[in-house]
């Protein structure tokens, strides 16, 4: 039996955006880094994502968004986490975000946003440095 805490991460795609290659690649990178990744797949509502995150007791939610709905979907996930007393679960995003959106999303509580070209190693290292399993 292992006695170390394993980092658990939910990777999913909210909304109608159907391009999941990025999400699958990051899930794979997290697996190779030794994390346990709960992959919830496409077309998730914020409610589904938050409930899954709570049931799975993840430390981190990583959402992929390429279709421009991040300003609506990400804050909703944050609100729901707060509503359910689960604001200790960290939210990050990956995808296409204009600079001004990055600023405002971070202000609202998204911990980090990764844009095209972000190296996988860099994202994995960010997780190692910033996420301490509870």
């Amino acid at each position, binding site marked *: 039996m292992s006695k170390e*805490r394993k980092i658990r991460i939910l990777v999913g795609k909210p909304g109608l955006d159907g391009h999941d290659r990025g999400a699958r690649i990051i899930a794979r990178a*997290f*697996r*190779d*880094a030794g994390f*346990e990744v709960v992959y919830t797949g496409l077309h998730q509502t914020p409610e*589904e994502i938050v409930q*899954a995150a709570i*049931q799975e*007791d993840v430390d981190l939610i990583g959402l992929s968004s390429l279709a421009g709905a991040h300003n609506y979907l990400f804050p909703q996930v944050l609100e729901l986490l707060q509503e359910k007393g689960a604001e200790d679960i960290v939210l990050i995003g990956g995808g296409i975000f204009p600079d001004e959106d990055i600023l405002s999303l971070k202000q609202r509580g998204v911990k980090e946003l990764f844009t095209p070209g972000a190296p996988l190693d860099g994202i994995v290292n960010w997780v190692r440095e910033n996420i301490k399993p509870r």
Partner: protein
Amino acid sequence: MSWTQKILDGDIRAVARLIRNIDDGLSEAREVLKELYPHTGRAYIIGITGSPGVGKSTLVDVMIQNLRARGKTVGVLAVDPTSPFSGGAILGDRIRMQRHSTDKEVFIRSMATRGHFGGLTPSTRGAISVLDAMGKDYILVETVGVGQDEIEIVRSAHTTLIVLVPGMGDEIQAIKAGILEVGDVFVINKAEREGAQKTRQEIMVMIEMNKERKIKGGWKPSIFLIEAIKNEGVEDLMKGIEEHRTFLLKKGPDYLKKFQYDQAHMELFDLIKQDCVEVLHDHLKRSGKWEQYIQDLVHKKTDPYTLSEEIIAFHLNGCKAP
């Protein structure tokens, strides 16, 4: 409020965290499990096993739907493999069941094997107890995709489903020992495919050849053809599961007691095995003896049989090595 009370009250966050603590082998979790033990034994546990890709998760999804339509509460444990290299895992069973995420009467948890063989995880039994104690009527346990010999689920489930798809091997597969012997209910999924009837025939012959039915209390396994993705045939399958449940209940208290006896036996056996190995291994490692033993073995100064006997003789005073 105590952990135990929170679990009994069905506090989702407490349940989720406790399962994680069990998974991570924290000693606090064990203390809670001790307290929960008297509150377990009420849920009906269904095991779902079969090779990778036969549709276990999709089947679980429609089973949840069916049970919820009947007003039953459901807990799900879905096991996926851990990478032997990184120790990480991608747990993807949930994708097929995500529509039930927001249903408060459904609790779904993905688990990684973490190096354990047998189809489940070392923590599965504990996790079942937690879902049982929180009051779920049914607990569906989906094993990792299995081959031929991963039959651990049988020790934990009241009814074990073996999921197959048409055209997966010839007649000889069906007479081999192992997984096909342990099914209470056989499910042939993707039954629209060619060969479904042939697969059914082969399973039927296998079942018929076992005339004595000494194991399983005389139950004759049933076979169902379904298309899980279209929710076809699932109603009948659920009735088949209920029939097995009724059969177990009708066998009377003696049979159920025997069932509980066997389960208690395996539970204690597995736990002692796990605890002993862990305690001894930790102890030997800390004292540096472990490294010495391994070196001795590598250089053929001794053999593992003698060593194991010596370790047992020394540490378990009074117990003789077999």
